[in-house]
C-alpha cells in the first residue's frame, strides 16, 4: 500500500520548512565539526520533521515525561540529524550544535542517552535499536501505558541479523504499539558493486524489503520519504494499526537536498570543502558559516 498525501493542508509547508532547517543545521554542524555523516542524515530529515513536529506526543520541556512517545534512532550514525531536530524542537539551544563531536559535548558521534536529555536510547551499533524499541513497546503493554514506540532503521542496517530476530519477536507478540521506519535510501557505506565500478547496488530492492517485513508478520506501508505530509499520514496510520507491528518503508535519497550529494555513496561520511559547504547551503536556501545556528 502506498500512502498519498491527504488533508494536511497548509501545515505541510511548515513541516517542509522544518525539514529544510534540519538539513541546513546538519550541513553546518558537520562542516563545523569536520566530521560526522551527511548522506544518511539528509535522507532522514523529512521523516524526523514529521515525527518531531507532528506525530510524536512529546514534551520538549519535560523530556522524561513517562507517557511520551518513544523514538529510537537505530541508525545512530545519523545522530546529527536527530540533534538538529531536537534543537529545532526546543530540547536544547541551537547554538549547542556547534559542540557536536567535541570533547565533553552532549552531542556525541552516536546518540548517548546518559548525557543528552531527549534521547530515549543510546545507539550506534547497527541493528540494536529495533530490539530496544521492542522492549519499550513490550514494557508499555505490560505496564498498560498508552505511548507508541517509533524506531528508525536504515536499509543497509537490515543486513544485521538482530533486526530479523527482533522482527520475528515483535510480530509474535503482536506489538501494534511499535512502529518501525526503514529509511530506504538505497545505499550503505560502501555497498556491493561490480568489480571496478562506481555504480552501487541497493541493499535491497523494493520487493525484497517489502516482502521480508511482510513475511515476518509486519504491516507494511510504503511512502515517499521526502513528502512530509505523506510521511505524517503513513506514521499516523501505522500508529493506529491494530494486531501487528507496523513498518513504514520510507523511500528516500541519500544526501537529499544537496544535488551533488544525492545518490552518491561517497557522501556517506565525507566532510565538505569550504566551496562545497557554501554550495550546499545555497541549495538549501541559506548562506552562512559552519556551525552557525
Amino acid at each position, binding site marked *: 500500500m502506498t500512502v498519498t498525501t491527504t488533508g494536511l493542508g497548509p501545515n505541510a509547508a511548515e513541516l517542509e520548512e522544518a525539514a529544510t532547517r534540519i538539513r541546513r543545521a546538519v550541513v553546518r554542524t558537520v562542516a563545523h565539526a569536520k566530521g560526522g555523516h551527511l548522506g544518511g542524515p539528509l535522507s532522514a530529515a523529512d521523516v524526523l520533521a514529521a515525527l518531531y513536529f507532528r506525530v510524536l506526543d512529546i514534551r520538549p520541556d519535560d523530556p522524561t515525561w513517562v507517557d511520551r512517545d518513544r523514538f529510537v534512532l537505530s541508525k545512530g550514525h545519523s545522530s546529527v540529524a536527530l540533534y538538529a531536530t531536537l534543537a529545532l524542537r526546543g530540547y536544547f539551544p541551537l547554538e549547542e550544535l556547534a559542540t557536536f563531536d567535541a570533547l565533553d559535548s552532549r552531542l556525541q558521534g552516536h546518540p*548517548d542517552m546518559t548525557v543528552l536529555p531527549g534521547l530515549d536510547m543510546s545507539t550506534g551499533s547497527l541493528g540494536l535499536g529495533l*530490539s*530496544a524499541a521492542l522492549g*519499550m513497546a*513490550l514494557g508499555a503493554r505490560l505496564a498498560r501505558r498508552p505511548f507508541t514506540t517509533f524506531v528508525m532503521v536504515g536499509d543497509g542496517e537490515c543486513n544485521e541479523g*538482530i533486526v530479523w530476530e527482533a522482527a520475528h519477536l515483535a510480530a509474535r507478540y503482536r506489538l501494534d504499539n511499535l512502529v518501525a521506519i526503514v529509511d530506504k535510501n538505497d545505499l550503505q557505506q560502501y555497498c556491493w558493486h561490480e568489480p571496478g565500478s562506481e555504480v552501487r547496488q541497493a541493499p535491497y530492492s523494493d520487493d525484497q524489503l517489502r516482502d521480508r517485513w511482510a513475511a515476518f508478520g509486519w504491516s507494511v506501508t510504503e511512502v515517499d520519504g521526502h513528502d512530509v505530509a505523506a510521511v505524517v499520514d503513513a506514521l499516523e496510520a501505522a500508529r493506529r494499526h491494530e494486531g501487528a507491528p507496523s513498518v513504514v518503508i520510507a523511500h528516500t535519497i541519500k544526501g537529499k537536498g544537496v544535488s551533488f550529494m544525492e545518490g552518491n555513496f561517497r557522501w556517506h561520511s565525507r566532510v565538505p570543502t569550504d566551496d562545497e559547504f557554501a554550495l550546499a547551503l545555497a541549495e538549501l536556501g541559506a548562506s552562512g558559516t559552519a556551525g552557525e545556528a
Partner: protein
Amino acid sequence: MTLAPGRALRAVFGEVIAEMARDDPRILVLDGDVASSSGADSFDAAMPDRFIQTGIAEQNMLGVAAGLASVGFVPIASGFACFVVGRAFDSIRVLIDQPRLNVKIAGGYTGMLTGMAGKTHQMLNDVALMRTLPNMTILAPADEREAAGALRAMIAHDGPVYIQLTREASPILFDTDPGFRIGPAVPIRSGTDITLVSTSVQTTRTLAAAEILAAAGIDAAVLHVPTIKPLDGDAIVAAARSTGRIAVVEEHTVVGGLGSAVAELLSERHPVPVKRLGIQDRYGESGPNEPLLHKYGLSAAAVAADVRAWLVASQDAAEGLVSEPRSGMSAWRS
C-alpha cells in the same frame, strides 16, 4: 570436614526471583528458550505473566531487556552464559553497560560443568569479557544460600549486574545465611603460608584443597570472592600482606578472570608472588564432572598438588639465591 549437600544455584534462581517479584512489579524474566535448564521454569510456573519467552535469539533478548529497563522494568535476561554473554556481548556493551541500564543478566551453566555439552557450551571467559565493562557488577556465589542473597542484592542494586549460576548441585558452604552484600570478599579459612583466592562454586573445592594442604603441613588461608567486580581490593591486599603469596583458583580461563584481576591489583598495590590456577588458556571438552574437573586442574586434589608444586618450586628458586633455606619451608617437600 564434610559439607552438607546443597542444591544447584540454578535451582534457587527461579524461586528467589519469583518470591521477590511478588512484591516488586518491575521484575520480569526473559528466557532464551532454556528455562527448563536454567531454572527459570520455576519462575514461569509461579509468575507466568512476568515470564517473557524471547526465543533462541540472545542478541535480541539483551536488547529487549535494555528497552524494558529504559521504561522502568527490572528485566532479568536468562540463558546459558555462552550465549547471553558470548553471543549477546555487543547488545550488552552498547545497550546495557554504556547507558548503565538496570538489566540483570543471569548466566547459566557457567564454568566447566554443562551437562557434558563440551567446549561450545563451556563459557570459560565470561568473567574476562564482563570485567572489561566499566559499569558492570559481577557476582559469583558459591552455594545456594549465598546465591539467594546474591540474587536479592542483584535486584536491589540499580545498574547492570551479571550473575554466574552453575548447573550442578553444590555443597553448602555457609551454615547460615551469609548476609550477602555486593563488594566484600569473604574469609573462609585462616592460614599463614599462602592465601587461596577463589570464587563461585570453585571456592568449595578450593577449601577442600586447603585441607589436603594442611595435612601436608601447609597452612593455607581461603578467601572467597563472590563479587568479582567491583573487586574487594583491600581484602586481597590484606591477604597478600598476611601470607606473602597468593594462588587464585577459578573455574575459568586464567586469561582475564579473577586471577588476572588479582594479579593486576597486587602488581600495583602490594606485589607478591601470584599463581593463577584455572583453565590454562585452552578449551574444555565433554566428560563426566569429577574427572573433567580433575583433568583441568580444578578438583581439590589437583589444586592442592599444583599449589604445593608451586611452593616447592618457589623454594627451590629461593635456595638458588639464598644459601640457608628458610625455616618451616622444608615441611612442604615431604
